[in-house]
């Protein structure tokens, strides 16, 4: 399956890369990191131009993210009227931690990227704060993947396996940490109200 998908990259070049990266950022389960790694390797081999490949990937990632942010914003408008307390808590959390969450969910904990876009939009994170963290995070992701692919071109599928496992480990560990903290705070007859 990986082979069949990767065969699209030498055949169609930058447009297919941009499509997969953009849809991946929107939450469609596609091997975007693998494609970026392979793109870096094709750049190294002189089969793709460096600047155009990097710029197109970044633009596609930013477009996909912003579409997710906009969807969150539109979908949340009715929710905010019905659940003002929940929305207020989400806003406060986003004000404190939003930029870090957006930045690190672009590349280090990339499975959380699409849901964080929706939450940032839904929670009313200001677009100017969002876009700064979003673009620097995506720039980190594109540069990191392409540099790794450039340097280790013969091992891109293995690298993608490793990076994929690392990202999922971090995403699950964050989930375990958050639910664990909830359970700890509500141990022994708590009222369910946040401590």
């Amino acid at each position, binding site marked *: 399956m990986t082979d069949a998908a990767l065969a699209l990259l*030498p055949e169609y070049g930058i447009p297919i890369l941009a499509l997969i990266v953009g849809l991946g950022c929107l939450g469609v389960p596609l091997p975007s990191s693998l494609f970026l790694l392979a793109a870096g390797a*094709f750049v190294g081999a002189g089969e793709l131009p460096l600047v155009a490949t990097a710029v197109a990937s970044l633009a596609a990632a930013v477009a996909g993210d912003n579409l997710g942010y906009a969807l969150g914003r539109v979908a949340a408008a009715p929710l905010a009227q019905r659940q003002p307390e929940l929305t207020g808590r989400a806003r406060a959390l986003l004000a404190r931690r939003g930029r870090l969450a957006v930045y690190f969910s672009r590349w280090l904990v990339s499975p959380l990227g699409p849901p964080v876009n929706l939450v940032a939009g839904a929670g009313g994170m200001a677009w100017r704060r969002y876009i700064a963290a979003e673009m620097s995070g995506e720039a980190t992701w594109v540069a990191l993947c392409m540099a790794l692919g450039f340097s280790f071109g013969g091992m891109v599928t293995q690298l993608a*396996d490793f990076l994929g496992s690392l990202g999922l480990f971090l995403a699950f560990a964050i989930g375990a940490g958050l639910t664990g903290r909830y*359970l700890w705070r*509500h141990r022994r007859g708590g009222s369910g109200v946040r401590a």
Partner: protein
Amino acid sequence: MNRKTPSARRGGRIAIVLFVIFAAGAAFFGFRAVMFAIHWSIPANIERPLEPWMTIRYVARSHDVDSLALAASLGVEAAPGRRRTLEDLAAERGESYADFAAQVDAELARMRADD
């Protein structure tokens, strides 16, 4: 004494189930990532297998050999701008991918031995 409301108890049970799922996922993928890292930290395990989607120039660069020399010895063109994959090249020669990949592997081995 249990002063929890039914909805809070249900919330607690959901949180326990989620915690177990997340912890199991973290253990599984953490183990997998560590095993990958250990496996590839051993130089003998580093292999760079040919794949049907690779081009001659891609193969040459990842195996650190000259792409023009590799192309010439296989009797194929490696002109920039035309990204023909190993699968395409095999089809053009009327060979199966496996046969052509074996020739490329043999040629890579020969070129590395010459260095």
